[in-house]
């Protein structure tokens, strides 16, 4: 790229010996940024892609986010530099141009230098990719560790990198939704490997809002705590899991449990919850409710996913509510 103002006959051969500049410099004069160096080749391409836009921010929109900071910097600093984030634009051919801007204050001059930084960008890209891969591996390791602890009955169920508050529901003390989802995924993989059935119950308290409305939220919370203890107490297999997965929704995950046993357990839970009476110390009344339960069993050697299983039991709960509440309905993953 030749600079018509700088390239005289005498200097032409010297300039030709150097690679074309990869940066462009603007100087802030009377509130306007004026280009004070030759245009690098990438700037021509960017301008062409912008329809030869008339202003620098039309051509380089990223500067809209950087110039306010740069202006503050120029207003308060006489010497130094402020470097922007990386940004990437494409030219008309679709080629990517990676850029960095730098606001400079030098001997009373306020300069903006914009540079094409392909090599530096790719170096940062590789570092960021490695960091992201590490984050994913750490998350996966924590997930597997928690699953392993659960399967081996280790008292440290929560595993490394995760506190108990991350896995326990604060109100009821049983597992929370996050832990349920993590273990659900693990149990599904385990069921696939062992060709074992996996059952899921989804319980939704009928008209729970009435308890809150009639007795107040503390009473409703007390009922939820008692119900959670009941559900957890009914589960006998060490691998079974009870979790609170919504406001008044609970789920139980039953690895190795077939359909007949899952339905039997659902009936047991329904009957016990029906006779559960939780005293309310304020009104001295007894809180009671029924639950609608959706049941689904994934037989061994089938392909249902966690999402399909959840969809099946939640659909079944809706059917149970529609048909009068307090019912047990078998879910259908195809609906």
């Amino acid at each position, binding site marked *: 790229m030749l600079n018509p103002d700088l390239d005289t006959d005498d200097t032409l051969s010297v300039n030709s010996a150097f690679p074309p500049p990869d940066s462009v410099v603007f100087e802030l004069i009377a509130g306007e940024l004026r280009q004070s160096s030759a245009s690098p080749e990438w700037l021509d391409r960017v301008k062409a892609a912008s329809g030869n836009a008339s202003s620098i921010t039309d051509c380089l*929109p*990223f500067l809209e986010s950087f110039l306010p900071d740069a202006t503050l910097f120029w207003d308060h600093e006489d010497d130094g530099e402020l470097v922007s*984030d990386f940004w990437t634009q494409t030219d008309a051919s679709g080629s*990517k141009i*990676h850029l960095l801007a730098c606001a400079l204050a030098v001997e009373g001059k306020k300069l903006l230098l914009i540079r094409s930084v392909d090599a530096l960008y790719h170096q940062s890209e590789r570092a960021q*990719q490695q960091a992201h891969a590490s984050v994913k591996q750490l998350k996966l390791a924590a997930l597997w560790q928690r699953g392993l602890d659960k399967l081996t009955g280790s008292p440290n169920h929560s595993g490394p990198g995760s506190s108990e508050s991350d896995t326990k529901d604060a109100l009821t003390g049983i597992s929370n939704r996050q832990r349920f989802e993590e273990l659900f*995924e693990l149990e599904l993989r385990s069921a696939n490997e062992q060709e074992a059935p996996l059952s899921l119950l989804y319980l939704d308290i009928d008209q729970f809002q009435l308890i809150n409305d009639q007795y107040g939220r503390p009473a409703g919370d007390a009922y939820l705590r008692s119900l959670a203890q009941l559900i957890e107490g009914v589960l006998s297999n060490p691998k079974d899991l009870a979790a609170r997965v919504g406001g008044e929704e609970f789920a139980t995950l039953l690895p190795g449990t077939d359909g007949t046993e899952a339905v039997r357990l659902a009936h047991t839970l329904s009957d016990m919850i029906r006779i559960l009476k939780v005293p309310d110390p304020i009104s001295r009344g007894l809180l009671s409710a029924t639950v609608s339960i959706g049941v689904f069993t994934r037989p061994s050697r089938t392909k249902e996913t966690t*999402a399909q299983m959840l969809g099946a039991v939640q659909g079944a709960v809706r059917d149970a509510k529609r048909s009068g509440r307090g019912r047990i309905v078998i879910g259908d993953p195809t609906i």
Partner: protein
Amino acid sequence: MPALSCRFVQSTCRWTRTNHLIPRSGKAHARGATFTSKRMIINGDCDQKSVIRSSLIMLIQKKICVIGEFGVGKTSLISRYVDSIFSDKYHTTVGVKIDKKQCQIGDALVNLVIWDLAGESHLRTLNPAQVRGASGFLLVADGTRADTIDIAIALQRKVSEILGPVPFIFAINKQDIVEQWRVGPEVADALRQRGWDVRYSSAKTGAGVEQMFLDLASRLIDREGAPHAES
């Protein structure tokens, strides 16, 4: 020496009659509509042959941001929409990637300036300066990673604090591998009840992608009646 002046244009929109541009001036009023986008750029010699069908075409430029956890497919969605391409290879975005795409919404020709912000991670958090000026945003999560939904919800709050109640669409991406999803339909249902426009998308197959951007663009130029979710 060429000189580029840095002007922060406050005018809102402009009209062109066939290939003639009306001189720049404050707000434009036409057919009872007032457009209040922050800035409007005119491309006098742009190749808009295909859109200059009617006698009056409105040109509008809008900035939108694409936001979400790293690896959810933000850049792939943009590549699918802008260039109709998809690559299985993972390319992380460092900083910001800016693309432009022109689309026609009714009588308006919309230049979408799409800011693809590097994914939220422990290494990087949202930079408000890069979000400011956006007229709307696309929020992206990965259906195979449940935690990306939580991060998207948190990001929606952050962005809404910066931009106010602007239109946005929430895309749960990677629909092509729905069998690996860890996000059930109840998540989308719950968010829809909060007023969110939740879509399923696949940058790989293109499912839902173009419509999502067009719908967002449409809401940007017609803010009245557009659903603005509560945070």
